[in-house]
């Protein structure tokens, strides 16, 4: 890759430039800051959209009373039950049970506290999900 070929496709991206190694006119490698590449944006966009769609589905399921808010907040933090359980110091099978709304609603405050700390939300937030999908962005 030549210096001129280093992608500068996303001029107004979130101010993060990455360093790329590219050849200068003398054929020596130098570091060039790149603002981003369209190709990369396509695949990353796909992954981000997939996560967002999954999260939205879960949010609706919570509002419909099929899943507990805990499940929503876990997915919002891109965790899985194992990571969440590990962070909160609770057995994975118990965490999975807590995804049922009826079991979740009976949890002691001390357990909720641990989940809230693990997910970096307040215990009040943990009991609810946003009413509309935009609220979370």
């Amino acid at each position, binding site marked *: *890759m030549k210096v001129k070929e280093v992608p500068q496709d996303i001029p107004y991206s*979130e101010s993060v*430039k990455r*360093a790329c190694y590219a050849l200068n006119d003398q054929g020596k490698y130098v570091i060039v800051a790149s603002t981003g590449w369209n190709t990369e944006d396509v*695949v990353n966009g*796909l*992954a981000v959209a997939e996560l967002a769609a999954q999260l939205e589905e879960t949010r609706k399921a919570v509002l419909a009373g099929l899943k507990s808010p805990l499940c929503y907040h876990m997915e919002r933090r891109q965790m899985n039950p194992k*990571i969440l359980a590990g962070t909160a110091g609770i057995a994975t099978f118990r965490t999975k049970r807590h995804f049922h709304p009826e079991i979740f609603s009976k949890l002691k405050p001390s357990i909720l506290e641990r989940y809230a700390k693990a997910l970096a939300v307040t215990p009040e937030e943990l009991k609810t999900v946003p009413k509309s999908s935009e609220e979370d962005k």
Partner: protein
Amino acid sequence: MSSEINAAGKPFIHHHSAHCETGATTALFRDKGLEVSEPMIFGIGSGIFFGHLPFVKLVGLPVTTYRYLAGTIFRKSARRLGGKFVTQRFHNAQKGMEELRRVLKTGQIVGLTTNIYWLSYIPNRYRFQFNGHNIIILHEIENGFRVSDPVLENPVDCLTGDLERARFAKGPLQPRGFMYYPKYINLQPDFRTACLEGIKDACKAMLEIPLLFFGVRGIRYLAKRTIKSGEKMGFIEACRQLANIVRMQEEVGTGGAGFRYMYAAFLEEAAELFGSSELADLSKEMTAIGDIWREFAVVSARIIKQRDQSENTFAKAGGLMMICAGREEQLFKDLNDVVRKLKA
């Protein structure tokens, strides 16, 4: 590049690096007064690699890696350059933070392994649960720390709470507060011997691991899978998998093509060090291979976006990968021969 000072008032120059682990290691070496470049550390630490693990899943998709396991570049380069490092892990987060503060107060900058999701200064689209991001802590500030993140252009601030979460995140490869800093660094290291060792090790990893999933064999395996994936999994699932391969290649820690270019930069430096035209030629070949990896990414993105479907097929993407496999195999074989002729 920008200048900062550490807790003892000593200047620290932040360099924008292409990869977090090599960047952090380089920063620690430079801080002690050993001028060494990032590609040099990458080469000496034998960072280049390939692996595709269909049964290890991250966010439900198979893992593809273009470099060696996290942490090995640092260890290998330290060993080969004759540096002694203090490394620590902690069971207790409180103790881990106290120890960090204590070391920072002595004026020593510290390398940390963290979870990238909890580092709030990283833009949202790059944040995901990955426990292998390396950063350098310069000094403590009011309710936070001054951080030199090698992949960012300039040093940033990080809140104490975020840093603690990032250091003690759970999950695969959990860092357990891993921190490292040099105790002693050899200021006249034998670069030639270190380079030769690094190159030989890299050749071995790329050519000689007798498993389907690693090195050149791994690239071929993934290429074959990609060619068949369209019919086998259906278009949507195949796209997901392909997107993930490209994402791992370009997004996650500069990835495949980026690592190939960095290795080419290393070979260029090594060529100067040994005065060897053969190494210089191999550097050019490596650059060409990096270009093919990029072309693969472009074709993949077109497949996903469904542009020119007659031309951009899974067979074409897999074919490009197959070319990479062939050329990398030849390159590492040649490299192995060249290195064995060179004297330290």
